[in-house]
C-alpha cells in the first residue's frame, strides 16, 4: 500500500488533548453505529427467532447464509444485484463524466441551455404511470436492465462530477490543446486520470443507488428471475399476511442473514476504493 501514502506528511503528532478527545468521540460514535448492527449480525447466526437483544447467538448456525447461497430463489436475485450494480455504476460513470465535462466548457455556445435542460429534470417528473408506460414502450418491463438504464442517468451526479472537474487547473487543458489533443483526447488522457477520487466516490454512489433500489423492482419487475436482492429482502421484512415462503429455517435467521449479505459486498469493496479517496485529486501543486 505504499502508493496510498499521503502526499503531505503532517508534522509529528504529539498526544494532544485534541487527539485524545477526537479518538474518544469517534470510538463512542462507532459503538453507537455498531450496536444496532451487532443485533442483526448475532441474529443472523441464531437458529431460533429471538426478539430481544442478545450479545451472542443462543443457538449458533450458518443455515441463514447457506440458504441464501444455496437456494435459487435467493441466489439468483443476489447475482442480479451484482450484475446490475456493476453495469449501472459503469454506465453512470460514463454518462456523468461526459455530461460533467461538457458542462465545464464555458466557451461552448448553449452550455447554459444544456445545464438547464438537465436541471429541469431534477425537479419535474412525469410521475409513476407515465414512466411506466414509457418503460413498457422501451421493452424494459420485467427486465432487470431497467435498473441499469434508470440509474445510469443521474443529474445530481453529473453536477457533482462537474464540480470535481472544475478543480482541474485550466492550464492543463491549454497545454493539451496546444499539443493537438481532441476534446475526447483531453477528456480521456488528462481529465479522467486526474479524477480518480471523483470516479471512486461517484462510482460508489451509483453502485449503492442501484444495489439499494427495491422500488423500481416493485413497480416494473414481476418475474422472479429478474428481481434483485434488496427487493427480496424487503419482501421478507415488510410483507404482511402472505404466509412466509417456507424455507426449512427460522424466518428471522434468514432475513438477518440477508441484511448482512446486502451490506457485505460494500464492506469488502470500500477499503479498496479508500486509497483513491486518500490519494485524491492531487492537483494542488499546479493550482493557482
Amino acid at each position, binding site marked *: 500500500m505504499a502508493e496510498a501514502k499521503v502526499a503531505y506528511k503532517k508534522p509529528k503528532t504529539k498526544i494532544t488533548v485534541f487527539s485524545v478527545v477526537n479518538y474518544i468521540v*469517534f470510538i463512542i*460514535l462507532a459503538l453507537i453505529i455498531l450496536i444496532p448492527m451487532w443485533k442483526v449480525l448475532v441474529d443472523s447466526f441464531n437458529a431460533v427467532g429471538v426478539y*430481544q437483544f442478545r450479545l451472542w447467538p443462543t443457538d449458533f448456525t450458518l443455515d441463514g447464509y447457506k440458504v441464501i447461497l444455496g437456494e435459487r430463489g435467493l441466489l439468483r436475485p443476489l447475482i442480479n444485484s451484482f450484475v446490475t450494480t456493476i453495469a449501472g455504476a459503469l454506465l453512470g460513470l460514463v454518462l456523468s463524466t461526459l455530461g460533467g465535462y461538457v458542462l465545464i466548457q464555458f466557451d461552448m455556445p448553449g452550455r447554459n441551455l444544456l445545464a438547464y435542460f438537465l436541471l429541469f429534470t431534477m425537479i419535474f417528473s412525469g410521475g409513476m404511470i407515465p414512466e411506466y408506460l414509457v418503460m413498457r414502450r422501451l421493452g424494459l418491463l420485467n427486465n432487470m436492465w431497467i435498473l441499469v438504464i434508470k440509474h445510469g442517468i443521474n443529474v445530481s451526479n453529473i453536477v457533482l462530477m462537474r464540480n470535481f472537474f472544475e478543480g482541474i487547473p485550466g492550464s492543463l487543458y491549454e497545454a493539451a490543446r496546444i499539443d493537438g489533443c481532441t476534446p*475526447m483526447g483531453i477528456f480521456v488522457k488528462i481529465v479522467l486520470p486526474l479524477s480518480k477520487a471523483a470516479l471512486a466516490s461517484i462510482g460508489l454512489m451509483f453502485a449503492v443507488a442501484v444495489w439499494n433500489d427495491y422500488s423500481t423492482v416493485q413497480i416494473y419487475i414481476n418475474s422472479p428471475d429478474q428481481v434483485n436482492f434488496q427487493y427480496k429482502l424487503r419482501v421478507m*421484512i415488510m410483507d404482511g399476511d402472505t404466509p412466509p415462503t417456507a424455507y426449512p429455517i427460522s424466518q428471522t435467521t434468514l432475513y438477518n442473514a440477508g441484511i448482512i449479505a446486502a451490506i457485505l459486498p460494500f*464492506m469488502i469493496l470500500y477499503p479498496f476504493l479508500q486509497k483513491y479517496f486518500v490519494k485524491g485529486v*492531487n492537483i494542488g501543486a499546479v493550482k493557482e
Partner: protein
Amino acid sequence: MSNNNTTMTSGTVQVRKKPLGLRIWNNRGHYIMFVPVFIFVLILNYWPMLGIRYAFMEYKAGGTPSWTGFTHFERMFSTSAFWSAFGNTLVLSLVKLFLTTFASVIVSVFLNEMGNLFVKKTLQTIIYLPHFMSWAVVASIFTLILSPSSTGMINGMLRDMGILGPNDSSIYFLADSKMWRPIFYMINIWKDTGWGTIIFLATLSGISPELYEAADIDGATRLQKIRYVTMPALANTIITVLILNLAKVMNLFESVFVLYNSAVYDVSDVIGTYIYRQTFMVARPDYGYSTAVGLFRSIVGCILVLICNKASNKVRGRGIV
C-alpha cells in the same frame, strides 16, 4: 467520430470574442460528447413528462382519461391534512438535511485530522455501513430498540438508570408527538452521516498540502487550520450538496413511511406518505390526483432551488451549474 480531426484551434481565453459559428465549430467535439447524455435524458426524463397533463384529468385504470380542469387541485388545497403534510415535509426534510450535512462535515473534518491511518480507515468503514441498510431494515431495528414493551432496550436502560421509576409507564418514542421528530432526526443522522462524509472527504483530500504547510509556518494551531484552511475549501462542496439535496426536499417518503403511525400524523405525515394513503391504499386509484400532488411538489421544489441558486449566486458569484 470527428475526434480524429486534426484542425484544432489554439485560443482558449480569447475564444469568447470569436464569432458564434466558429465557437460552435470549435466545440463540435463537446457537442458530440453530450449526445449520449442528451438522448438518455430526453427519453427517460422528458418523454414521461408528457404525463403531467394527467394532473388535470381523471385517470383511472380501466377508464379513459377525461379532462377535469382544476378539481384535483381544489380537493388538494381544501384538505387540512394536505397542508399539514406540506408543512411537515418542509420542516422534516430541511431540518434533516441541515443536521445530517452538518454532522457529515464535522465528522469528515475531524476524521481528516486523525493521525493514525489504520484507525481512520476503520472508522470510515464503520460509519458508512448503516447507509447500506434499507429503510425497512433500519426501521425494524429501531422499532425494536425503542419499543415501549418490556423488550425495549432504551426503556430498559432508562429504568436501570432510574430515570424512569418502577411505576412510570414506558416511553412510546415512536408514538409520542413530542418525541417523534427528534427520534426521526437521530435515526437519519445515524444512517446517513457516514455516507455524507464520502463526498467531503474526497474534497478534503484534494486540498493543497501547501496550504497546511504555510499555516504551519505561521504557527497556526490545529483548530485554526481547520477554521482557516479546511472549512473554506469545503464550502463549495457543502453548498453544492445542500442545493442538490434541496431539489429533493419534497420527495421525502421512505424514511417517514417506515417510522410513522397514526398517533403522530400531526408531526410526521408528509406529502409522500399522504399521497400514498390517498391513492395507493385504495383499490382503484385516480392517477390524476397523484400526478396533481406530484406537480405541486415539483413546483415547490423548483421554487426552493431557484431561491438557493440565487443565494448561491450572491454568495459565491455563481449558481450551481
